[in-house]
Protein backbone atom coordinates (compact mmCIF):
# COMPACT_ATOMS: atom_id res chain seq x y z
CA UNK A 1 0.00 0.00 0.00
CA UNK A 2 1.48 3.34 -1.04
CA UNK A 3 1.79 6.31 1.31
CA UNK A 4 -0.84 8.13 -0.73
CA UNK A 5 -3.31 5.28 -0.43
CA UNK A 6 -2.61 5.05 3.28
CA UNK A 7 -3.40 8.73 3.77
CA UNK A 8 -6.58 8.42 1.70
CA UNK A 9 -7.67 5.55 3.91
CA UNK A 10 -6.91 7.60 7.00
CA UNK A 11 -9.16 10.35 5.66
CA UNK A 12 -12.01 7.89 5.17
CA UNK A 13 -12.31 7.58 8.94
CA UNK A 14 -14.58 10.64 8.83
CA UNK A 15 -17.24 8.56 7.05
CA UNK A 16 -19.75 6.46 9.00
CA UNK A 17 -18.38 2.97 9.48
CA UNK A 18 -21.13 1.16 7.56
CA UNK A 19 -20.62 3.47 4.59
CA UNK A 20 -16.84 3.13 4.76
CA UNK A 21 -16.99 -0.64 4.78
CA UNK A 22 -19.21 -0.73 1.71
CA UNK A 23 -17.75 2.15 -0.31
CA UNK A 24 -14.23 2.68 1.04
CA UNK A 25 -12.36 0.57 -1.52
CA UNK A 26 -14.20 2.15 -4.43
CA UNK A 27 -13.56 5.68 -3.16
CA UNK A 28 -9.85 4.96 -2.75
CA UNK A 29 -9.70 3.41 -6.23
CA UNK A 30 -11.39 6.50 -7.69
CA UNK A 31 -9.03 8.87 -5.89
CA UNK A 32 -5.96 6.93 -6.97
CA UNK A 33 -7.14 6.71 -10.57
CA UNK A 34 -7.96 10.40 -10.64
CA UNK A 35 -4.71 11.72 -9.25
CA UNK A 36 -1.76 9.82 -10.62
CA UNK A 37 0.76 11.86 -8.72
CA UNK A 38 3.91 10.98 -6.88
CA UNK A 39 2.76 13.05 -3.91
CA UNK A 40 2.55 11.33 -0.60
CA UNK A 41 -0.37 13.44 0.53
CA UNK A 42 -3.83 13.92 -1.01
CA UNK A 43 -4.60 17.18 -2.84
CA UNK A 44 -6.04 19.74 -0.39
CA UNK A 45 -9.30 20.17 -2.30
CA UNK A 46 -9.95 16.42 -2.28
CA UNK A 47 -9.15 16.16 1.41
CA UNK A 48 -11.52 19.02 2.19
CA UNK A 49 -14.34 17.52 0.12
CA UNK A 50 -13.87 14.09 1.71
CA UNK A 51 -13.91 15.46 5.25
CA UNK A 52 -16.99 17.57 4.63
CA UNK A 53 -18.77 14.68 2.87
CA UNK A 54 -17.97 12.34 5.76
CA UNK A 55 -19.04 14.82 8.44
CA UNK A 56 -22.21 15.62 6.54
CA UNK A 57 -23.08 11.94 6.29
CA UNK A 58 -22.43 11.44 9.97
CA UNK A 59 -24.38 14.48 11.10
CA UNK A 60 -27.14 14.69 8.53
CA UNK A 61 -28.30 11.10 8.33
CA UNK A 62 -31.70 10.62 9.80
CA UNK A 63 -31.51 6.95 10.64
CA UNK A 64 -27.88 6.16 11.15
CA UNK A 65 -26.42 5.04 14.44
CA UNK A 66 -23.18 6.88 13.74
CA UNK A 67 -25.11 10.12 13.39
CA UNK A 68 -26.53 9.51 16.83
CA UNK A 69 -23.06 8.94 18.24
CA UNK A 70 -21.53 11.98 16.53
CA UNK A 71 -24.40 14.09 17.77
CA UNK A 72 -23.98 13.09 21.33
CA UNK A 73 -20.23 13.22 21.24
CA UNK A 74 -20.46 16.85 20.18
CA UNK A 75 -23.14 17.50 22.77
CA UNK A 76 -21.14 15.78 25.48
CA UNK A 77 -18.08 17.88 24.70
CA UNK A 78 -20.12 21.06 24.75
CA UNK A 79 -21.74 20.10 28.03
CA UNK A 80 -18.35 19.28 29.54
CA UNK A 81 -16.95 22.63 28.39
CA UNK A 82 -19.94 24.43 29.80
CA UNK A 83 -19.61 22.69 33.14
CA UNK A 84 -15.93 23.51 33.21
CA UNK A 85 -16.72 27.14 32.52
CA UNK A 86 -19.46 27.18 35.12
CA UNK A 87 -17.13 25.89 37.82
CA UNK A 88 -14.65 28.58 36.85
CA UNK A 89 -17.31 31.26 36.93
CA UNK A 90 -18.23 30.08 40.42
CA UNK A 91 -14.54 30.30 41.26
CA UNK A 92 -14.36 33.85 39.98
CA UNK A 93 -17.31 34.69 42.16
CA UNK A 94 -15.44 33.39 45.13
CA UNK A 95 -12.25 35.24 44.28
CA UNK A 96 -14.15 38.43 43.70
CA UNK A 97 -15.86 38.12 47.07
CA UNK A 98 -19.24 37.41 45.61
CA UNK A 99 -21.60 35.43 47.75
CA UNK A 100 -21.64 32.32 45.62
CA UNK A 101 -21.30 28.77 46.96
CA UNK A 102 -17.80 27.38 46.72
CA UNK A 103 -17.21 25.44 43.48
CA UNK A 104 -15.98 22.44 45.44
CA UNK A 105 -19.27 22.19 47.29
CA UNK A 106 -21.05 22.20 43.94
CA UNK A 107 -18.82 19.53 42.42
CA UNK A 108 -21.13 16.56 43.16
CA UNK A 109 -24.04 18.37 41.57
CA UNK A 110 -22.08 19.23 38.41
CA UNK A 111 -20.79 15.66 38.30
CA UNK A 112 -24.29 14.21 38.48
CA UNK A 113 -25.48 16.57 35.77
CA UNK A 114 -22.64 15.64 33.45
CA UNK A 115 -23.31 11.93 33.95
CA UNK A 116 -27.01 12.36 33.26
CA UNK A 117 -26.35 14.60 30.27
CA UNK A 118 -23.90 12.17 28.73
CA UNK A 119 -26.05 9.11 29.42
CA UNK A 120 -27.57 9.14 25.93
CA UNK A 121 -24.06 8.41 24.65
CA UNK A 122 -24.33 5.02 26.28
CA UNK A 123 -27.91 4.05 25.60
CA UNK A 124 -30.88 5.03 23.47
CA UNK A 125 -33.19 4.52 26.40
CA UNK A 126 -31.46 7.28 28.35
CA UNK A 127 -32.85 9.75 25.82
CA UNK A 128 -36.02 9.69 27.89
CA UNK A 129 -34.14 11.72 30.46
CA UNK A 130 -34.05 14.56 27.95
CA UNK A 131 -37.06 16.57 29.10
CA UNK A 132 -35.76 16.47 32.66
CA UNK A 133 -32.43 17.93 31.77
CA UNK A 134 -33.30 21.52 30.95
CA UNK A 135 -35.01 22.19 34.30
CA UNK A 136 -32.18 20.37 36.08
CA UNK A 137 -29.59 22.61 34.49
CA UNK A 138 -31.55 25.72 35.30
CA UNK A 139 -31.90 24.69 38.94
CA UNK A 140 -28.19 23.96 39.06
CA UNK A 141 -27.47 27.43 37.79
CA UNK A 142 -29.92 28.91 40.20
CA UNK A 143 -27.97 27.33 43.02
CA UNK A 144 -24.69 28.50 41.57
CA UNK A 145 -25.77 32.06 40.88
CA UNK A 146 -27.32 33.79 43.87
CA UNK A 147 -29.24 36.24 41.68
CA UNK A 148 -31.27 33.46 40.12
CA UNK A 149 -32.52 32.27 43.48
CA UNK A 150 -35.37 34.78 43.26
CA UNK A 151 -38.48 32.57 43.00
CA UNK A 152 -39.92 34.58 40.14
CA UNK A 153 -36.91 34.02 37.90
CA UNK A 154 -36.82 30.33 38.75
CA UNK A 155 -40.46 29.70 37.91
CA UNK A 156 -40.20 31.59 34.65
CA UNK A 157 -37.03 29.72 33.75
CA UNK A 158 -38.61 26.33 34.44
CA UNK A 159 -41.75 27.17 32.50
CA UNK A 160 -39.82 28.43 29.51
CA UNK A 161 -37.54 25.41 29.54
CA UNK A 162 -40.46 22.99 29.52
CA UNK A 163 -41.99 24.96 26.67
CA UNK A 164 -38.76 24.80 24.69
CA UNK A 165 -38.44 21.07 25.22
CA UNK A 166 -42.04 20.50 24.17
CA UNK A 167 -41.53 22.58 21.04
CA UNK A 168 -38.34 20.79 20.11
CA UNK A 169 -39.87 17.96 18.17
CA UNK A 170 -36.76 16.31 16.68
CA UNK A 171 -35.53 13.37 18.74
CA UNK A 172 -32.21 14.87 19.65
CA UNK A 173 -33.15 18.52 19.80
CA UNK A 174 -33.42 18.65 23.56
CA UNK A 175 -29.72 18.41 24.02
CA UNK A 176 -29.24 21.23 21.54
CA UNK A 177 -31.71 23.36 23.41
CA UNK A 178 -30.02 22.65 26.71
CA UNK A 179 -26.57 23.30 25.29
CA UNK A 180 -27.68 26.51 23.64
CA UNK A 181 -29.45 27.85 26.68
CA UNK A 182 -26.65 26.99 29.06
CA UNK A 183 -23.99 28.25 26.67
CA UNK A 184 -25.69 31.61 26.39
CA UNK A 185 -26.35 31.76 30.12
CA UNK A 186 -22.76 30.98 31.05
CA UNK A 187 -21.54 33.39 28.39
CA UNK A 188 -23.72 36.07 29.88
CA UNK A 189 -22.50 35.48 33.41
CA UNK A 190 -18.90 35.50 32.29
CA UNK A 191 -19.34 38.63 30.20
CA UNK A 192 -20.94 40.30 33.17
CA UNK A 193 -17.97 39.44 35.31
CA UNK A 194 -15.68 40.77 32.63
CA UNK A 195 -17.47 44.10 32.80
CA UNK A 196 -17.28 44.09 36.59
CA UNK A 197 -13.58 43.60 36.41
CA UNK A 198 -13.14 46.15 33.65
CA UNK A 199 -14.84 48.68 35.86
CA UNK A 200 -12.53 47.84 38.69
CA UNK A 201 -9.22 48.04 36.89
CA UNK A 202 -10.26 50.61 34.26
CA UNK A 203 -8.66 48.85 31.30
CA UNK A 204 -8.62 50.24 27.79
CA UNK A 205 -10.44 47.26 26.17
CA UNK A 206 -12.70 48.02 23.18
CA UNK A 207 -16.15 49.39 23.83
CA UNK A 208 -17.71 46.37 22.11
CA UNK A 209 -16.60 44.07 24.89
CA UNK A 210 -18.23 46.31 27.46
CA UNK A 211 -21.44 46.33 25.46
CA UNK A 212 -21.66 42.52 25.44
CA UNK A 213 -21.36 42.62 29.20
CA UNK A 214 -24.14 45.19 29.60
CA UNK A 215 -26.52 43.26 27.38
CA UNK A 216 -26.10 40.24 29.61
CA UNK A 217 -26.06 42.16 32.84
CA UNK A 218 -27.26 39.61 35.33
CA UNK A 219 -28.18 41.06 38.71
CA UNK A 220 -30.53 43.77 37.49
CA UNK A 221 -32.01 42.05 34.48
CA UNK A 222 -32.44 38.37 35.32
CA UNK A 223 -36.04 38.10 34.22
CA UNK A 224 -35.66 39.91 30.92
CA UNK A 225 -32.44 38.11 30.27
CA UNK A 226 -33.98 34.67 30.61
CA UNK A 227 -36.82 35.67 28.32
CA UNK A 228 -34.42 36.91 25.66
CA UNK A 229 -32.34 33.76 25.93
CA UNK A 230 -35.34 31.47 25.69
CA UNK A 231 -36.76 33.36 22.74
CA UNK A 232 -33.53 33.27 20.83
CA UNK A 233 -33.17 29.55 21.49
CA UNK A 234 -36.69 28.92 20.25
CA UNK A 235 -35.97 30.99 17.15
CA UNK A 236 -32.74 29.21 16.47
CA UNK A 237 -34.22 25.76 16.92
CA UNK A 238 -37.35 26.62 15.01
CA UNK A 239 -35.78 28.01 11.88
CA UNK A 240 -32.41 26.34 11.59
CA UNK A 241 -31.42 22.71 11.78
CA UNK A 242 -31.00 21.58 15.35
CA UNK A 243 -27.33 20.84 15.12
CA UNK A 244 -26.59 24.31 13.82
CA UNK A 245 -28.07 25.55 17.08
CA UNK A 246 -25.57 23.32 18.83
CA UNK A 247 -22.78 24.94 16.82
CA UNK A 248 -24.12 28.35 17.81
CA UNK A 249 -24.11 27.40 21.47
CA UNK A 250 -20.56 26.15 21.09
CA UNK A 251 -19.61 29.50 19.58
CA UNK A 252 -20.54 31.22 22.82
CA UNK A 253 -18.06 29.21 24.84
CA UNK A 254 -14.86 30.19 23.01
CA UNK A 255 -15.95 33.84 22.87
CA UNK A 256 -16.44 33.74 26.61
CA UNK A 257 -13.12 32.01 27.13
CA UNK A 258 -11.30 34.52 24.98
CA UNK A 259 -12.89 37.33 26.95
CA UNK A 260 -11.77 35.66 30.14
CA UNK A 261 -8.21 35.23 28.92
CA UNK A 262 -8.05 38.85 27.81
CA UNK A 263 -9.10 40.06 31.24
CA UNK A 264 -6.74 37.74 33.07
CA UNK A 265 -3.90 39.94 31.95
CA UNK A 266 -5.25 42.88 33.84
CA UNK A 267 -5.77 41.08 37.07
CA UNK A 268 -3.88 42.13 40.13
CA UNK A 269 -3.67 38.60 41.52
CA UNK A 270 -2.46 35.36 39.99
CA UNK A 271 -4.98 33.26 38.15
CA UNK A 272 -3.76 29.72 37.69
CA UNK A 273 -6.38 28.39 35.25
CA UNK A 274 -5.51 30.42 32.15
CA UNK A 275 -3.73 27.51 30.48
CA UNK A 276 -6.80 25.34 30.91
CA UNK A 277 -8.91 28.10 29.43
CA UNK A 278 -6.61 28.27 26.43
CA UNK A 279 -6.83 24.54 25.76
CA UNK A 280 -10.59 24.51 26.17
CA UNK A 281 -10.85 27.49 23.82
CA UNK A 282 -8.76 25.70 21.21
CA UNK A 283 -10.88 22.52 21.46
CA UNK A 284 -14.09 24.49 21.25
CA UNK A 285 -12.84 26.56 18.33
CA UNK A 286 -11.92 23.38 16.44
CA UNK A 287 -15.33 21.85 17.08
CA UNK A 288 -17.12 24.99 16.00
CA UNK A 289 -15.03 25.21 12.87
CA UNK A 290 -15.68 21.63 11.81
CA UNK A 291 -19.38 21.92 12.54
CA UNK A 292 -19.54 25.19 10.64
CA UNK A 293 -17.80 23.66 7.63
CA UNK A 294 -20.16 20.71 7.71
CA UNK A 295 -23.09 23.09 8.06
CA UNK A 296 -22.07 25.20 5.09
CA UNK A 297 -21.35 22.24 2.88
CA UNK A 298 -24.35 20.31 4.16
CA UNK A 299 -26.83 23.06 3.41
CA UNK A 300 -25.14 23.98 0.18
CA UNK A 301 -26.50 24.04 -3.31
CA UNK A 302 -25.78 20.48 -4.20
CA UNK A 303 -28.05 18.58 -1.92
CA UNK A 304 -30.21 21.06 -0.09
CA UNK A 305 -33.70 19.94 -1.14
CA UNK A 306 -32.96 16.23 -0.85
CA UNK A 307 -31.02 16.66 2.32
CA UNK A 308 -33.74 18.63 4.06
CA UNK A 309 -36.39 16.20 2.97
CA UNK A 310 -34.50 13.22 4.32
CA UNK A 311 -33.87 14.80 7.70
CA UNK A 312 -37.13 14.01 9.34
Amino acid at each position, binding site marked *: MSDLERSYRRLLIVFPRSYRERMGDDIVATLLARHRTNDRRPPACEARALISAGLTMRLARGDDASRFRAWHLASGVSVALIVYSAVLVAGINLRGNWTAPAPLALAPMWGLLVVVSCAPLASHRARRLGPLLAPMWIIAFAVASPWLLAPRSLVVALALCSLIVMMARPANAWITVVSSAIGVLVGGVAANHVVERLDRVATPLPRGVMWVGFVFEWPSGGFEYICITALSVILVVGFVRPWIALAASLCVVPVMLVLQISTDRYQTYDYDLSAGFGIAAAVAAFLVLSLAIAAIRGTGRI*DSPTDTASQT
Partner: protein
Amino acid sequence: MNIDPVRLSILTVLADGRQHGYGLLRQIEELSSGSLRPATGTLYRVLDLLERDGLIADDGGEVIDGRFRRYFALTPTGRDELAASVTLLGEITAKAKTRLARRPSARPAR
Protein backbone atom coordinates in the same frame (compact mmCIF):
# COMPACT_ATOMS: atom_id res chain seq x y z
CA MET B 1 -37.32 18.35 -7.82
CA ASN B 2 -33.62 19.07 -7.65
CA ILE B 3 -31.89 20.23 -10.82
CA ASP B 4 -28.42 20.42 -9.38
CA PRO B 5 -25.89 19.88 -12.20
CA VAL B 6 -23.90 17.12 -10.46
CA ARG B 7 -27.05 15.26 -9.52
CA LEU B 8 -28.52 15.56 -13.02
CA SER B 9 -25.25 14.52 -14.61
CA ILE B 10 -25.05 11.39 -12.47
CA LEU B 11 -28.59 10.41 -13.43
CA THR B 12 -27.82 11.16 -17.09
CA VAL B 13 -24.70 8.99 -17.10
CA LEU B 14 -26.49 6.15 -15.35
CA ALA B 15 -29.38 6.34 -17.84
CA ASP B 16 -26.88 4.82 -20.27
CA GLY B 17 -26.05 1.87 -17.99
CA ARG B 18 -24.40 0.97 -14.71
CA GLN B 19 -21.22 2.78 -13.75
CA HIS B 20 -18.70 3.05 -10.89
CA GLY B 21 -17.47 6.21 -9.16
CA TYR B 22 -14.45 6.87 -11.34
CA GLY B 23 -16.38 6.14 -14.52
CA LEU B 24 -19.05 8.59 -13.41
CA LEU B 25 -16.48 11.32 -12.81
CA ARG B 26 -14.96 10.88 -16.26
CA GLN B 27 -18.30 10.83 -18.04
CA ILE B 28 -19.61 13.83 -16.11
CA GLU B 29 -16.57 15.78 -17.23
CA GLU B 30 -17.14 14.63 -20.80
CA LEU B 31 -20.87 15.51 -20.68
CA SER B 32 -20.15 19.05 -19.55
CA SER B 33 -17.15 19.56 -21.87
CA GLY B 34 -14.88 19.77 -18.85
CA SER B 35 -16.76 22.51 -17.00
CA LEU B 36 -18.18 20.21 -14.32
CA ARG B 37 -15.48 18.55 -12.23
CA PRO B 38 -16.83 17.73 -8.78
CA ALA B 39 -14.41 16.74 -6.04
CA THR B 40 -14.44 13.04 -5.28
CA GLY B 41 -15.98 13.62 -1.85
CA THR B 42 -18.75 15.70 -3.41
CA LEU B 43 -19.55 12.98 -5.93
CA TYR B 44 -19.90 10.30 -3.26
CA ARG B 45 -22.01 12.54 -1.08
CA VAL B 46 -24.46 13.14 -3.92
CA LEU B 47 -24.39 9.41 -4.76
CA ASP B 48 -25.28 8.65 -1.14
CA LEU B 49 -28.22 11.09 -1.24
CA LEU B 50 -29.47 9.67 -4.55
CA GLU B 51 -29.22 6.16 -3.15
CA ARG B 52 -31.13 7.06 0.00
CA ASP B 53 -33.83 8.67 -2.12
CA GLY B 54 -34.07 5.48 -4.12
CA LEU B 55 -33.12 7.11 -7.43
CA ILE B 56 -30.07 4.92 -7.87
CA ALA B 57 -29.17 1.53 -6.41
CA ASP B 58 -26.06 -0.40 -5.51
CA ASP B 59 -25.40 -2.75 -8.44
CA GLY B 60 -22.69 -4.91 -6.91
CA GLY B 61 -18.92 -4.75 -7.01
CA GLU B 62 -16.23 -5.96 -9.38
CA VAL B 63 -12.47 -6.09 -9.25
CA ILE B 64 -10.94 -4.17 -12.17
CA ASP B 65 -7.15 -3.87 -12.53
CA GLY B 66 -6.72 -5.17 -9.00
CA ARG B 67 -9.01 -2.51 -7.55
CA PHE B 68 -12.47 -3.08 -6.15
CA ARG B 69 -15.15 -1.01 -7.87
CA ARG B 70 -18.69 -0.47 -6.67
CA TYR B 71 -21.29 -0.05 -9.40
CA PHE B 72 -24.44 2.04 -9.34
CA ALA B 73 -27.51 1.68 -11.52
CA LEU B 74 -30.52 3.90 -12.20
CA THR B 75 -33.81 2.72 -10.63
CA PRO B 76 -37.22 3.23 -12.29
CA THR B 77 -37.83 6.09 -9.82
CA GLY B 78 -34.54 7.63 -10.89
CA ARG B 79 -35.52 7.37 -14.54
CA ASP B 80 -38.83 9.13 -13.82
CA GLU B 81 -37.07 11.87 -11.87
CA LEU B 82 -34.57 12.42 -14.66
CA ALA B 83 -37.39 12.69 -17.19
CA ALA B 84 -39.26 15.17 -15.00
CA SER B 85 -36.10 17.24 -14.45
CA VAL B 86 -35.42 17.35 -18.16
CA THR B 87 -38.96 18.56 -18.84
CA LEU B 88 -38.60 21.28 -16.22
CA LEU B 89 -35.21 22.35 -17.51
CA GLY B 90 -36.62 22.43 -21.05
CA GLU B 91 -39.41 24.74 -19.95
CA ILE B 92 -37.01 27.06 -18.14
CA THR B 93 -34.64 27.10 -21.10
CA ALA B 94 -37.44 27.92 -23.52
CA LYS B 95 -38.65 30.79 -21.34
CA ALA B 96 -35.14 32.12 -20.92
CA LYS B 97 -34.60 32.12 -24.68
CA THR B 98 -37.88 33.92 -25.33
CA ARG B 99 -37.08 36.59 -22.77
CA LEU B 100 -33.55 37.08 -23.99
CA ALA B 101 -34.83 37.52 -27.53
CA ARG B 102 -37.54 39.95 -26.45
CA ARG B 103 -35.16 42.23 -24.52
CA PRO B 104 -31.61 41.86 -25.79
CA SER B 105 -30.13 44.68 -23.70
CA ALA B 106 -28.85 43.71 -20.26
CA ARG B 107 -30.14 46.92 -18.71
CA PRO B 108 -33.07 46.37 -16.34
CA ALA B 109 -36.38 47.96 -17.38
CA ARG B 110 -37.71 50.86 -15.32
